[in-house]
């Protein structure tokens, strides 16, 4: 089942001689349960692509179809993108962006609260997610008291709360050591398989992409599909 389709996507910043073509004719299809990596040197347009897919940046050209709904068509949208974000997309950030004044439990409850899911059912969902991410014993701590890896796992739990169709992760392992980074990646893989959630993750680290379904490489805003195999080989990285 198709989760996301980008067709001839373009994004231009500025105009005239200040014009930056951050995305240029990008097309790709991602199915439910796909695990996708996005690689590329700094300034190649990875974050811009992620922002377009997150429905935060409006592309200047092309089409975004998400979960069967056309969101952007040639720079136009008539959709409540914030509602789509809170209901259907989960985010994991470079360094865990947990809300510092909410406990671990409340952080995971927050997106449920936003879509109006409250009470015992919501509480059960939180417990289930924290157990799944192996941070249940930290439930009542403030994020500042957790290790980086634990924080990142709470962030993944938060991203999963509303059973999103799509999870977007921007360098989720950047602030973690290899062992912990691998563990987070393993969990993302597991989530993609078990929940049929499409996962797109930006990464710099070729060692992390083992077992990804697709690895895309961005360069100057243009996309190359490097490999389309479930068991990938090592890539040379850009650093």
């Amino acid at each position, binding site marked *: 089942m198709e989760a996301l389709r980008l067709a001839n996507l373009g994004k231009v910043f500025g105009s005239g001689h200040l014009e930056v073509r951050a995305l240029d004719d990008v097309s790709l299809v991602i199915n439910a349960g796909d695990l996708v990596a996005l690689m590329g040197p700094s300034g190649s347009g990875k974050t811009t692509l992620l922002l377009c897919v997150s429905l935060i940046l409006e592309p200047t050209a092309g089409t975004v179809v998400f979960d069967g709904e056309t969101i952007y068509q040639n720079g136009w949208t008539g959709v409540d993108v914030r509602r789509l974000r809170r209901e259907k997309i989960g985010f994991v950030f470079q360094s865990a962006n947990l809300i510092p*004044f909410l406990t671990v439990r409340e952080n995971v409850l927050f997106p449920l609260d936003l879509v109006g899911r409250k009470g015992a059912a919501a509480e059960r969902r939180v417990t289930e997610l924290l157990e799944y991410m192996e941070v249940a014993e930290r439930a009542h701590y403030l994020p500042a008291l957790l290790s980086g890896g634990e924080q990142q796992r709470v962030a993944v739990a938060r991203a999963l709360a509303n059973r999103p169709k799509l999870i977007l992760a921007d360098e989720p392992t950047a602030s973690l050591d290899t062992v912990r980074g691998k563990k987070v990646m393993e969990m993302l893989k597991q989530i993609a398989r078990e929940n049929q959630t499409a996962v797109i993750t930006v990464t710099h680290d070729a060692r992390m992409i083992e077992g990804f379904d697709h690895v895309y490489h961005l360069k100057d805003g243009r996309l190359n599909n490097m490999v389309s195999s479930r068991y990938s080989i090592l890539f040379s990285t850009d650093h």
Partner: protein
Amino acid sequence: MDLAIRDLKLHKGRFLATIIGVGLLFTIVLTMNGLYRGNVHEGTALIAHTGPDLWVVERDRGGPFNEQSSMPEFFHYSVAAVPGVEQASPFIYYPVERQVKGESRRFSIIGYDVFGGLGGPRQLTQGRPIQQAHYEMVAHEKLGVKLGDRIPLGLHTFTVVGLTREAVATDGEPLVYLSLADAQEFLFQRDNQEVRNQRERQRRSLVGGGLTPQEAERLLPLLAPDIHTINAVLVKLAPDADPAYVARHIQDWLYFSVFTTQEEIDLVVRGRLARMSAQLGFFRILLLFVAVVIISLVIYTFTMEKIRSIAVMKLIGAPNRVVIRMILEESLLMTVSSFLFGLLVIHSIADLFPRKILILAPDTLLTFAIALAGGILASVLGIWQVLKTEPAMALGGR
């Protein structure tokens, strides 16, 4: 999920410090309210307590409290003869500064007809009213004298026969009640040397004006100053009399000014107290302004520290209203808690002030309403930051 309370819990220390600081500002604002009300209360209590139907004073004068007023004593008989007047009594009111028990004290003398006239003290806390024509006094407790004390005033010594607490003079100083004759003598009679000196001056100007010394000698007693002066006549109306009609009659035929008790109170409030009100009002506005600025800055820093979290919230789809509500609630919580703290402080220290601090519910409510509006205003800066924050900021960089 209440975000505001959770955020403030994490920043307890700063929250409490702000409440104490801003709360004390509110204390000062409330003190100024109370100071003004206390002044009005003290400034008008004597008028309200004396409370005759009409005050008759010198023509075109706002006397006897707001301005000096004087008239010959016998005029109260003329006022008494006006149709509709049941009783008319002479009244003296005069602020002085004299030695009492070895200390220089400011107080006001009230002279009234002690044999059934209007204008005397209504309730005594101790002792009895003045019963003799001479040398007895009733004093306000604030003067610091005791029953039976003998107090020299002017040429005579007075015995304290009663104490009162009901009203103070319009400037907040204590009152001393004397019989009319004693008050006149104390206030207008000069001592013998002064009388002799004046008589000598007058003799010389009469002789200088062309009279023989014998003629001058015969005229002198007629020029002696008349001490039978009063400051006002208090009028009690007959039950069915129309105050406006009686007032007009007295104004037109006796050539005095006439005020009701309420008008007399208004004169004082508009006159002496208006300036003070303006002064305090200006201070109150300034202080409220400072309070709003402080809360704004605190809320602004609270918001800026959270700006990344706010970006995250927006990114994961929180509508603006969720975030704005958090900022607004923090601001209002801070304002309301500060106000309550300020209120608590003023209520516990009001009695320590030397002058009366009168805290009235409508004043407090109005101040609260203004504070609340200020609290909303204070969050504007923070809310503006919230609206400006791009969700993209959460995804690294921009």
